[in-house]
């Protein structure tokens, strides 16, 4: 597939979005001077179409749509190597969080659906049960992603080893977790939080 040519102009540069990313991540993309140390140490760069340093460069140029359309942000493992090694203290792992959040809220436009589905189910489980139950998470993920046979051979072994619990108890203070989720939703509706 031929790549769309990038045109840098006042029309294509959207810096407001980048300011939002900087506010959420509490860091500055402008400090980056493209040394590439983040990408050199990134264990996931090999799976990304835009390695970490290019993600920052695209943000500097206001070309965030290119970043969100791809899978790079969803293939970041949050290992924090980039943030640790950046000579300019750009908190790139936090920038990745902010980009994912803004993309997630806008429900798009990345094609990377498996990682997003896993995140969604994980958060639903916390809201419903207070804790994570791996058996439920894995089973529902397989059904919803249509991969009914994924890790099928592992299941019985894990159950035999006591690693997957068929049943689980619920927290006594479950209503408190629901309140946290709904208060955050309320704050966002009122514009008190991003």
């Amino acid at each position, binding site marked *: 597939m031929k790549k769309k040519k990038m045109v840098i102009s006042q029309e294509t540069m959207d810096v407001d979005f980048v300011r939002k990313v900087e506010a959420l991540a509490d860091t500055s993309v402008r400090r980056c001077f493209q040394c590439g140390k983040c990408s050199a140490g990134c264990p996931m760069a090999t799976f990304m179409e835009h390695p970490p340093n290019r993600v920052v460069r695209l943000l500097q140029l206001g070309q965030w749509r290119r970043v969100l359309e791809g899978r790079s942000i969803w293939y970041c493992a949050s290992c924090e190597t980039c943030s640790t090694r950046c000579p300019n203290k750009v908190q790139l792992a936090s920038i990745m969080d902010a980009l994912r959040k803004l993309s997630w809220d806008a429900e798009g436009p990345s094609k990377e659906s498996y*990682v997003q589905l896993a995140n969604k189910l994980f958060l639903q489980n916390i809201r419903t049960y207070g804790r994570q139950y791996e058996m439920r998470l894995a089973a529902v993920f397989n059904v919803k992603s249509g991969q009914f046979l994924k890790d099928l051979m592992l299941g019985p072994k894990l159950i035999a080893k006591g690693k997957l619990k068929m049943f689980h108890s619920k927290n006594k203070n479950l209503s408190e977790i629901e309140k946290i989720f709904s*208060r955050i939703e309320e704050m966002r509706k009122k514009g008190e939080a991003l």
Partner: protein
Amino acid sequence: MDKTLNYSYYPGCSLHASAGEYDLSTRELFNVLGIGLTEIPDWFCCGATPAHNVDELLSLSLCAKNMELADKVEGDMAVACAACFSRLKTAQHVLGENDVKRKQVEKAIDAPLKIDGKVKHLLDIIARDLGLERLATAVNKPLTGLKVACYYGCLLTRPTDVPNLDCTEAPTIMERVIETVGAETVDWTHRLECCGANFTLSRPGVVIQLTNAILESAKAAGADCIMVACPLCHGNLDIRQKEIEGVYNADYNMPVFYLTQLVGISVGLDAEKLGLDAMIVNPMPLLKEKGLL
């Protein structure tokens, strides 16, 4: 028994499921070492990677809520999972520096923040609070001749200024603990490389590639086994090892122990109390060969 060594214990979700042996061996080991653990009643999930991935405010609020629950229990907070440890320490760090986020979280949990209590990983408690000298006195079956590759993974030491467990790029805390109980450690390249963590659910291919490099490096360095302090690292290295061997046509047969299991063996705890039977890569032949069982 030192009265000051009492902690509020935050096991995290994995220790109640796929990492049951980490929970079991932690309780048994700490009991032998005279360290008190009181599990925080009705603790919640810390939000782990998915929460901070897409919703930082939720992640910070869940951690703040857990620290509020921990505040009701005597002692610093003892955390077993490297990911929970990282989330809790990150929340302390961010909320300590950013007033806007602090106010938002207070509103979300509808309570003033109680996040000033110390959050400690088990390694910190063993190496610093108990101390290596006292640990040495508890050893009655030194792990002589066992070559251990200590695997830190990502979150025990990174990023700078957050976990403050040890040096970010060249930590030695795991090596110091396991050498204290008589084992040898190997120098190897992948101590701090990522295993792929929670991609094990969404994109297992990623985990297989990254984890293979870790196993390969440990094997090349002459290790008999790998020691971890994180249930996600353990899951990827142990549970997926057979599959990785198949994909890469390799033969690792590399048992992956939790730190509490190996230290537990050295203080004389038996296999049952350390949950060694829950390990997917059978450690028994290695332990028998080294005269440790």
